[in-house]
């Protein structure tokens, strides 16, 4: 499949650009987007910490002779969240103007390096999500634990999805052109 090259914009980062969301929020669109992104990021980590606290405070039934929990949240469950948070940090530390390769930053090597780090950040986030699904399947679903234990795995997957959503929200909110820049570019 060959794509038409005629209207290709070399400043574009993705082949399919992010949709230009217009919620009619006016000048507060960027502020609201940043607030939503921060809330999603905190929500992601509290979702997972909920599972960790539940696992740590698991009460066995009173007639059980010993600790009857078949599985606990261990360090393995923390790894995907750590990877996703690292990827979030890497993606958001990159200067957006440098990725676009505009005229002010004509150094081609800097653009190439910025895109490499962007790729590493997104790979970290995708790796975190894939790792959380792996843990859900291998640690919780395959041994067919009861539902209150598979919740640990689902919380882990939700954490990584929420971190990705937070990164996307922050990216879209910050790449909205402000009125000041818009009037300059005309």
């Amino acid at each position, binding site marked *: 499949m060959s794509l038409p090259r005629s209207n290709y914009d070399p400043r574009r980062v993705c082949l399919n650009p992010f949709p230009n969301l217009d919620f009619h929020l006016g000048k*507060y669109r960027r502020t609201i987007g*940043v*607030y*939503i992104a*921060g809330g999603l*990021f*905190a929500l992601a980590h*509290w979702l997972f910490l909920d599972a960790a606290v*539940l696992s740590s405070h698991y009460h066995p039934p009173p007639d059980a002779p010993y600790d009857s929990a078949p599985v606990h949240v261990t360090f393995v469950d923390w790894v995907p969240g750590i990877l996703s948070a690292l990827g979030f940090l890497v993606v958001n530390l990159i200067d957006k103007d440098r990725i676009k390769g505009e005229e002010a930053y004509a150094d081609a090597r800097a653009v190439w390096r910025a895109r490499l780090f962007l790729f590493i950040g997104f790979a970290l986030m995708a790796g975190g999500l894939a790792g959380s699904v792996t843990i859900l399947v291998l640690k919780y679903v395959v041994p067919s634990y009861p539902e209150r234990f598979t919740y640990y795995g689902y919380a882990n997957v939700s954490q990584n999805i929420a971190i990705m959503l937070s990164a996307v929200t922050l990216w879209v909110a910050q790449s909205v052109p402000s009125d000041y820049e818009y009037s300059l570019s005309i």
Partner: protein
Amino acid sequence: MAAAVILLSFVLAVGFLLIILSCALWANWLPLLVALTFVLAPLPNAIFARCGSDDFSTDSEGSGPADLGRFITSMVVITGFAFPLILAHAEIIHPAACAMSIIGGGLVYGTILSYAAAFRHESDEF
């Protein structure tokens, strides 16, 4: 304006009363962290608000430090709501204590927000 100050201080006292009651009634002082969280919530916004706005940019236009402040503020607010919920889910605190501390924290944070909104214009005129 004096009536507004009295009303706000009354609401703030009710918020702290709810949080302290939610701790004292069940003799479990973990929900007190909610009060600390909501008191600290506006702090990053206040610190980073002065950064990034110069003479050529309007107030509504965002900058990196201002965005970081908003991000951390939003994180802290969500933390304040999520913390009692998680404690109640793990059966560490009573569900009623969870509800009381959330309502109290919301009242405290709402008081701080409305106080900042009500008295912002006077400092601008200066």
